[in-house]
C-alpha cells in the first residue's frame, strides 16, 4: 500500500498545492494500488494511460498557478456515467462494447475542475441490486472481508470498495434506492445522495428517472462536500435538474449544531432490529446531544409502505428506460441470421440482460399493463406523495433526521437466502428507499465497527436542498465517532 494514497482528497489537494507531491506521482501511486488489488474486482475498465496525461496537465497547471478546484485528483467513476471515449457498460453484457461519444454532465463538471479519471467502477447491472453481485463483470469484494469474501453493498459497490481500499482518492456513485448510502455503510465510506434535481442526470445511464441521483462516495465528510460543490448545479440538458443555487458545502463543516433538532423516526426501530445497529444509533444521538442539539422522536407513519412503493415505481420506470437496449443501434446484438425483428429483440434481450434486470423489467411491465395500472402504479404514486408528506410534517419539528443506513452489516458473497429470495435482498433497503421516494438529501457516514469488525453507517436525512444542515451535523458526528479507515 502506498502512503500518499492514504491521504484524503482535501489532504491530497493540499499536498499538490504545496508541491509535496506531484499529480503524476499521485496517479501512479493509485495505479499501483489498482494493479495490486485487482482481486477486489472494483474496476471494469481502467483508464490509467489517459489519467497520466491528465495528471501531467495538472502538474503544469500547479506549476503556473492555474490549478483548478480538483486539479490532479485521481477519481474512480461508477460505470453508469457515460464518459466520452471510455467504455461505459452499466455492468451489463448489453453495453459490454459501448463507448459513448459524449460525456455526462457530472463527469464533465469534474473534468472541468481538473479531476483525473482512473477508470470505470463496477456496480450491479444497471444499478439494480444491493450487493454488487448482479454485475456481468463479476462481484466486487469488500476490502473489509476477513476469512471469507463479503459483498461491498450495492449498487455502487465498486465505488465504495475502491475508496475503502484506496484505489482512487474518491469516487462517483448514483443512488436510486440507497445505492450510494448502503455500499458506503458496508465499506466504511462517507457518501451523500443529494436532493433530487441537485445533480444533472444527463449522461447517466437511467435506471428509474424520478429516483436516480448522482453523488460522491469519499473517505470523509469534507471530501464529500468538496466533490458535491463540483458535481451539483443546474443543467439545461436535464429538465428535472433544479435551478437552485449551490452553496459552498465546505463552509458548513465548522458550524455549531447547538440548538438544532435531530429527529429519530420511531418506525425505523422495528421489532427485532439488530442490537448493534440500535446501540450505535443511540450512541450517535448521544454525541449530537452532547454537542447541544435537541434529540426528539418523530413519526413517519407511512414508512412500512415505502419498500412496496419503491418496488412498484422503480421497476415501472426501469422497464421503460431499458427498452432502448434492443440490439438495433448500439451495444450487444444477438446473432441476427434469419431472425425477424421481434426474434432479434427477444434473443438480444434474453442474452444481454442478467436475471435481476429481467426480473425488474417483468415487474415493471406488469404493474404498468392494462388493468393493473390503477392497482399498482397509480396507488404507488399516491403512496409516494403520502411518504413525502410524512417527511414534510416531520421537518416542521426537526432540522435533520438520524437513522441507521442499513439494518445489517456487509454479508458474505453468495448468501443463499438472498439469492434464492430476492425479497430478503430488497429488505436491506428499508432505511434508504423512503428518501429517494421523497427526493430528499441523505448522507451515510461510518460511526464504528460491529463485533465482527465490520463498519456500521448512520444516515442523516435533510430537508429538500438543505444538504448544508446534513454537512453541519455530519462533520460533528464524524469527529465524535472517530472512525478508523483501512
Amino acid at each position, binding site marked *: 500500500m502506498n502512503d500518499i494514497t492514504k491521504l484524503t482528497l482535501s489532504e491530497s489537494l493540499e499536498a499538490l498545492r504545496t508541491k509535496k507531491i506531484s499529480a503524476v506521482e499521485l496517479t501512479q501511486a493509485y495505479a499501483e494500488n489498482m494493479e495490486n488489488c485487482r482481486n477486489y474486482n472494483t474496476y471494469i475498465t481502467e483508464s490509467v494511460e489517459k489519467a497520466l496525461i491528465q495528471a501531467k496537465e495538472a502538474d503544469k497547471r500547479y506549476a503556473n498557478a492555474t490549478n483548478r478546484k480538483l486539479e490532479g485528483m485521481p477519481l474512480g467513476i461508477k460505470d453508469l456515467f457515460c464518459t466520452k471515449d471510455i467504455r461505459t457498460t452499466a455492468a451489463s453484457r448489453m453495453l459490454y462494447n459501448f463507448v459513448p461519444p459524449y460525456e455526462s454532465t457530472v463527469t464533465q463538471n469534474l473534468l472541468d475542475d481538473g479531476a483525473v479519471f482512473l477508470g470505470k467502477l463496477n456496480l450491479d447491472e444497471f444499478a439494480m441490486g444491493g450487493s454488487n453481485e448482479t454485475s456481468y463483470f463479476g462481484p466486487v469484494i469488500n476490502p473489509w472481508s476477513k476469512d471469507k469474501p463479503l459483498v461491498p453493498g450495492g449498487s455502487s459497490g465498486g465505488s465504495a470498495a475502491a475508496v475503502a481500499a484506496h484505489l482512487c482518492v474518491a469516487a462517483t456513485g448514483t443512488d436510486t434506492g440507497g445505492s450510494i448510502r448502503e455500499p458506503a455503510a458496508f465499506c466504511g465510506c462517507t457518501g451523500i445522495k443529494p436532493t433530487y434535481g441537485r445533480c444533472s442526470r444527463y449522461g447517466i445511464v437511467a435506471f*428509474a428517472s424520478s429516483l436516480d441521483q448522482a453523488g460522491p462516495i469519499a473517505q470523509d465528510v469534507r471530501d464529500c462536500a468538496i466533490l458535491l460543490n463540483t458535481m451539483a448545479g443546474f443543467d439545461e440538458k436535464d*429538465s428535472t435538474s433544479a435551478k437552485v443555487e449551490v452553496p459552498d458545502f465546505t463552509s458548513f463543516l465548522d458550524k455549531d449544531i447547538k440548538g438544532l433538532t435531530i429527529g429519530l423516526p420511531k418506525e425505523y426501530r422495528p421489532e427485532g432490529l439488530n442490537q448493534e445497529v440500535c446501540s450505535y444509533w443511540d450512541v450517535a444521538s448521544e454525541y449530537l446531544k452532547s454537542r447541544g442539539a435537541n434529540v426528539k422522536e418523530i413519526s413517519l407513519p407511512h414508512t412500512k409502505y415505502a419498500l412496496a412503493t419503491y418496488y412498484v415505481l422503480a421497476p415501472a420506470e426501469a422497464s421503460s428506460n431499458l427498452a*432502448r437496449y434492443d440490439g438495433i*443501434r448500439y451495444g450487444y446484438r444477438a446473432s441476427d441470421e434469419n431472425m425477424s425483428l421481434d426474434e432479434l429483440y427477444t434473443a438480444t434481450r434474453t442474452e444481454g440482460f442478467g436475471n435481476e434486470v429481467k426480473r425488474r423489467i417483468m415487474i415493471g411491465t406488469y404493474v404498468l399493463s392494462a388493468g393493473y395500472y390503477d392497482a399498482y402504479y397509480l396507488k404507488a404514486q399516491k403512496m409516494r406523495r403520502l411518504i413525502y408528506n410524512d417527511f414534510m410534517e416531520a421537518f416542521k419539528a426537526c432540522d435533520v433526521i438520524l437513522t441507521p443506513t442499513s439494518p445489517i452489516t456487509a454479508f458474505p458473497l453468495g448468501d443463499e437466502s438472498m439469492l434464492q429470495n430476492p425479497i430478503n435482498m430488497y429488505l436491506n433497503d428499508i432505511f434508504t428507499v423512503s428518501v429517494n421516494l421523497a427526493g430528499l438529501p441523505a448522507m451515510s457516514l461510518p460511526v464504528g465497527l460491529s463485533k465482527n469488525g465490520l463498519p456500521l453507517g448512520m444516515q442523516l436525512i435533510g430537508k429538500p436542498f438543505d444538504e448544508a444542515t446534513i454537512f453541519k451535523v455530519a462533520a460533528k458526528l464524524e469527529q465524535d465517532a472517530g472512525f478508523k479507515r483501512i
Partner: protein
Amino acid sequence: MAEYIIETNKGKWEVVVGLEIHCQIISKSKIFSGASTEFGDDPNVNVSFVDAGMPGMLPTLNEECVHQAVKTGLGLNAKINKYSEFSRKNYFYADMPTDYQITQFRFPIVGEGKISIDLSDGSSKYIGIERMHIEQDAAKSIHDLSPSKSYVDLNRAGVGLMEIVTKPDFRAPEEAGAFLRKLRSILRYIGTCDGNMDEGSMRCDINVSVRPFGSAELRTRCEMKNVNSVKFVMQAIEYEAKRQIDVYEKGGQVIQETRQFDPSTGQTKVMRKKEFAHDYRYFPEPDLPPLILSDDYIAKIKQEMIELPDAKKQRFVSSLGLTPYDAMVICENKEVADYFEKAAAGHDAKKVANWMMGDFFAMLNKKHLDINNSPISPDNLGRLVELISKEVISGKIAKDVFEIMSETGKDPEKIVEEKGLKQVTDISAIEKIIDDVIASNAENVAAYKNGKTNLLGWFVGQIIKASQGKANPSIVNKLLKEKLDGA
C-alpha cells in the same frame, strides 16, 4: 346539407366518422432535441444523441413547439389547458429508438374546440374537436432497398407532431374532405403546419362505423391508419361504410380492428385485429416535468393571432359584397386572400374576385406558378379591373391586355396606351362607323326592318370589328338601335 344515406334493398344506413390527424409542427428543431427538422436531407444526418435513444440521454422540451401548439389550439377555437403532462407510450419497433414515444395522454395541451366546414350545397356545419396533444414523430422505416434488410432513417425521429382528435361528428365522406381542407387552411394561415399530406406532414387516421339511419347508437368502429390524401380519405370512408353495411346485412358483426386503405384498389383490408392490439403501458414521463402555461403566455400568443379563414370570409361577404362561395374559395389560402385584398383595394371587389377565380387561376395553373410568383401584381390586376369599370376598355379587350400582362408583367394602362386599345366612347366617331356599316349592308338593313330583329347582334359585331374592338359595346347598341329603328 343533403343527407348522405346509403340505401340498400334492405334498408337505409348512416355513416359515423371521427378523424385523428397527425400534423408535423413547423419548428426549426425537434420537439425534444436540438436537431434540425429539415425535410429531404440525406438519411440520418439530422439526428442528435437524444433522437437516437443513446444511453443517459434526456429529452428537453422545445418551447417553439409549445408556442405552435397553443397557436393551433386557438385556431381550432379550443380550450388551452394551462396544465398538461407528457407520458410514455411503450412499444417495440425499429422506428422508435427509445422503444417508447413521448406523447401526452391524460392531460393534453389543448381541450375541446370546433371548426366550421362549408359544404357543396352552400350549407355549413360545426365539427367538434375532442382534444389536441403534442408528441414526437417516429423515424422512417425503409423496406424496399434490400430483399433481406430494413433500413431506418432517424431524420424524422423526434420531429414535433400535433395530434388532433375530432368528435365522431362526420356523417358523409364530403364532410371529412371539407374538414381536412379547412383544417389545412387554418394551419397554413397560422404557420404551424404546412399540411402537405403527400409529404406526410399531415396524416389522417379514420374511425368509421355505420348504423341504421335515424338511430342514435354507436356501433363497433374500424380504424384506417395513415391515409395520405383528402381524396383517399373520402374514398376510404365510402368503401368502409359499404363494407360494414354488407357485413351487417349478411347477419354478421363488424369486428374492431385496424385496417389499411389501398389507394390502388380503393379498398380497405385488415392490418391488425383487436387481440393483437398493443398494450402501450402509458405512464407519466419522468424525464419531463408537467407543462404549466401562464395566462400571460397564452394572452401573448392570442395577440399574435391573425384573421382566420372564417372571419376573413365573413368580412369579404359583408363588407366587400362577395358571394359566400367566392369568399370561401378566395379565403382557403391565405396568400390568395392577401393577394385578393390588395388587388381589390379601391376597385370593384366582386369583379376582382371573378377575374381571380377565372382567368387568373387558369393562368397560374397553366404556368405552374404559385400566387407568390404571379407575373401579374395584385395592384396591376386591380387596375385592369378598374379600366373595365371605367369603360376605358371592354371586357373582351381586357382579356387581351391580361394575356400581355401575364407575359410581360406590365402595367395595364401602359399596355392599353401603347397598343392603342382604348375603348372608343366618342359618339360621333362611333356614329361614323355605324353609318358606314349600315351603308354597306343595305340588304341586311332591309331584312331587319322586315322583322329579322335578331340581326341586331350581327350589326353590333360588325361595328365592333370595324372599330378593332375598341368601340364601347353599350354605346354601339344604343346608337345602332336608334339608327335602325329610326331610319
